[in-house]
């Protein structure tokens, strides 16, 4: 038994310097099998839809009636939601990490709620309690989106903050005479750039894709428009949603590429949700 393990270890460690790296680099067969099967499950429906619509439907999307206003509303909502979410969540997460570590678990629990409380239920209550002046503007929807985006934003910030030596950074900044605003703006924010980016991306993806609340609150956002439009022209509406999917994905890819490049010199990688600890320094 032991001999077998030693043999295997010997095979896996060509040089003394990089034992772990080689293990990670090679994907054994079962992993490829899973990725291929799951990949097929995701790609085949996309292909089927693409075959149905045909490429000629894509240019027609942009000239359809209602395209511009719906897109404008969605983009506006995405912008307002993103700004509000960051202004609310970034200082909160920093403060909690710095001063109230005990509250972290509680906050994590609370931020899970919007993922699971059915939007259908939420919108019933929202329409009930919201004052009339808010109900007539789309910003009511933006406020609800802030709540929906909170779990994603919080988790991104949380992951980013955990990878930092937060106390050291803040203390160093303050002993060099920086005020709070300066510390936040010139020290913490540049360090949290990746976390910030992923929070933005997830928020934007969420707002651009949300359908339930917008349709039940009777706003014609982009996803609602696609559906309303579906009644009149099937292929073009499908083309529009495929296009939206693809553009969002390219956007996300671009952001992780940029973020990945800028962090290469550092010891940590921050992806959308996961953060790897520095391997040096114990736990």
């Amino acid at each position: 038994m032991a001999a077998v393990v030693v043999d295997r270890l010997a095979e896996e460690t060509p040089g003394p310097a990089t034992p772990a790296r080689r293990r990670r680099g090679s994907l054994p067969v079962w992993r490829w099998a899973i990725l291929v099967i799951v990949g097929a499950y995701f790609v085949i429906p996309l292909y089927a839809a693409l075959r149905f619509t045909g490429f000629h439907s894509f240019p027609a999307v942009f000239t359809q009636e209602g395209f511009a206003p719906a897109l404008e509303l969605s983009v506006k909502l995405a912008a307002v939601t993103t700004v509000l979410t960051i202004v609310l969540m970034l200082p909160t997460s920093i403060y909690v990490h710095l001063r109230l570590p005990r509250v972290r678990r509680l906050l994590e629990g609370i931020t899970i709620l919007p993922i699971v409380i059915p939007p259908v239920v939420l919108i019933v209550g929202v329409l009930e309690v919201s004052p009339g002046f808010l109900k007539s503007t789309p910003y009511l929807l933006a406020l609800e989106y802030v709540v929906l985006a909170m779990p994603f934003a919080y988790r991104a910030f949380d992951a980013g903050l955990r990878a930092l030596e937060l106390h050291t950074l803040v203390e160093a900044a303050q002993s060099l005479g920086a005020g709070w605003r300066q510390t936040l703006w010139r020290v913490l924010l540049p360090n949290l750039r990746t976390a910030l980016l992923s929070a933005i991306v997830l928020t934007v993806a969420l707002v651009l894709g949300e359908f339930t609340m917008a349709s039940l609150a009777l706003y014609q956002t982009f996803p609602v428009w696609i559906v309303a439009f579906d009644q009149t022209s099937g292929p073009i509406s499908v083309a529009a949603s495929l296009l939206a999917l693809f553009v969002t994905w390219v956007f996300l890819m671009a952001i992780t590429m940029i973020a990945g490049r800028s962090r290469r010199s550092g010891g940590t990688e921050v992806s959308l949700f996961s953060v790897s600890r520095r391997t040096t320094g114990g736990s």
Partner: protein
Amino acid sequence: MFLGLGLPAIAVAIGAFQNSSGGGFTLSNVKAATHGIYLQGFETSLEVAVVTAIVPGIVGFLVAYAIFTAKRGNLLRRVVITASGVFANFGGVPLAFLFIATLGSTGLVTGWLTAIGLNPYEHGFDLYTFSGIVIVYMYFQIPLMVLIMLPALEGLRPAWREAAQNLGASSWQFWRYIGGPVLFPSFLGCVMLLFGSALAAYATAEALTSGSIALTPIQIGSFLNGNVLAGQQNIGKALGLGLVVIIAIAMIIYTLAQRRASRWLR
């Protein structure tokens, strides 16, 4: 936070116990919501949620583990993570359409399967019923699982695996005594989250079945759209309260699981 989430939830809870004419206290809405077609709605919703939490939970875990062990900064890893971010937010009519084009009665895969003599519609499959909903829900549940499971996997230190191997543990022993126990609470927590997300899904089910199958969120939606008899509006709120109660139970399990998991994930 309170304005956006707490107040509406309280309004729903109060509304569930009010009669529609004036606002007096009544239990009739709750009673109506737990009988007949609405009870059936809860049952079907629960069945769908359980199946679409466990199966995508396992598949999503395997995918997350597969890309977790891939090299950092690897292209495949980036593609999977970003695609998960996009697909986890995908749903509604576009998603329903994707599957109608794939597994509908004239869909692409249906055609392939018929060609090899396995027409799924002759073997009890129907996209617009339970089996179809399960397959379609997995399209956003698996990516969600990948996204929420990845941070938990970070807790599995490579050092532990190396230590186990040095002590002569086999791969099976490693998972049985180290990896399994460390990850199980996180896994359970994530599955609970998937359960809640499946229970809450509205747009996709609505688009796919257009009401042909009794699911609680769709029933609530129909109350909102005004397809109800006068005097019954508050049954919708009672149904909403029912969903919130079920999810609250799931969340308590989630919190307990997380508390156990956090022993290893600092």
